């Protein structure tokens, strides 16, 4: 119960601060829109070519936008050295990880909603038929990306070149997740059912579990420095 209370405290605090400052949300949403304009200009009106690269583009947009937000996960804790106060408050530090993970998940969900909406509007893509399956893939992909992103965000929070180091560390570890989400999205948008992508979904679930557990087990050590 204490763990849940602590986790909720972190989520509530981060959402409240973000609602007031809008620093991350504004940057991430603006960046997503810009990316879509770039895709639109570079791909033109060739529907066949667009259909072939759409799953990759969708996740590329989500991932690049998420990178901006995930890298800032613990930056808010650096102001006035709140990081130190989190460390010095007795109790399981895993709650900070789960709280930050939930906050990042919410941010990514917002980005995904916007990107999906803009894809359907700008690129004239119909995702309605594949939506239930797509939502499941988006949810599993979000957990995987946010789990690793939160962990590496904490790891690089005190590093001077964190903006460079963060994606360099994050992207190789995310390869299984990226592979699974792009392949699943590709199959679902081509009209396939969830049954046709169950092996990718299993990989996603396994990766999510491994990443979240690894995050929970190592976050304490990371926070202690």
């Amino acid at each position, binding site marked *: 119960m204490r763990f849940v209370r*602590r986790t*909720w405290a972190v989520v509530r605090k981060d959402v409240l601060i973000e609602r007031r400052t809008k620093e991350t949300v504004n940057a991430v949403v603006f960046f997503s829109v810009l990316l879509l304009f770039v895709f639109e200009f570079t791909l033109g009106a060739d529907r066949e070519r667009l259909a072939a690269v759409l799953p990759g583009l969708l996740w590329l947009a989500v991932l690049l936008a998420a990178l901006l937000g995930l890298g800032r996960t613990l930056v808010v804790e650096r*102001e*006035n050295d709140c990081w130190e106060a*989190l*460390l*010095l*408050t*007795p109790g399981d530090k895993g709650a900070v990880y789960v709280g930050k993970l939930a906050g990042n998940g919410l941010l990514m969900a917002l980005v995904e909603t916007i990107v999906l909406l803009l894809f359907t509007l700008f690129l004239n893509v119909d995702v309605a038929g594949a939506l239930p399956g797509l939502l499941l893939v988006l949810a599993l992909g979000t957990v995987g990306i946010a789990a690793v992103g939160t962990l590496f965000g904490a790891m690089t929070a005190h590093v001077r070149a964190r903006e460079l180091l963060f994606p360099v560390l994050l992207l190789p570890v995310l390869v299984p997740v990226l592979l699974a989400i792009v392949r699943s999205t590709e199959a679902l948008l081509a009209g396939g059912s969830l049954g046709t992508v169950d092996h990718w979904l299993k990989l996603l679930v396994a990766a999510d579990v491994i990443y979240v557990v690894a995050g929970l087990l190592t976050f304490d050590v990371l926070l202690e420095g």
Partner: protein
Amino acid sequence: MVAATGPDPVIRVVGVRKVFGVAPVLDGVTLDVHSGETVGLLGPNGTGKTTLLKILATVIRPTRGAARVAGHDCAREPEHVRREVGLLAHESHLYEDLTAMENLVFWQRFAGERVRNDSLRAVLEEVELDHCADLRVRTFSAGMKRRLSLARLCLGRPRVLLLDEPFSSLDQRARKWLEQYLQDFAARGGAILMATHAFGAELDVADRLVILVSGRLIVDAPRGTMTADEIHRFYTLHTEEAS
């Protein structure tokens, strides 16, 4: 000069050495602080005062020696020590975009405790910030932030206060308030270790003074045995010797 000490100190530091890189910041520091006692830790900048406080607060570990708070080893049992200690650091440990009340609510929830608004209001009243409970910390003066940081510490009901330059940025009224607050805290049986490099009236709250120069503790004496001039002379003499 070494002050007489009684049994079972709340803070016990024995032969603590801390090395960053190759340079020792603390070198064989030994110090006891008892329940109800306020110890002023004097020393020039960069002499290891903050490092000693951070070792006791379990932020950093000593390279050698032992530091114990309320019988718990700071390096081996940090979670036990954290339940006993409140650290007032240079930084405020406050979220600038939350209000004073929201900061206290967060830190109480994060400590795993139930939030009772009336008790938080009472804490704010105690630090004379009840009238700005709903203002964002970003709009606070440095002195107000200092008082709110202290209010945050009090939520955890610590037995030991580790204070790093607690009187800095405070106006005369806030200084008086803090002096009284610390005297009350010690009178209730709390132990206080207060780092400072100033020789002002803030030293009046201390029962004992210790002077740290180049990582070594060179003076440990009851406050009453030394006049302000003597403290200053000692301090200057040893600082010059060390440099």
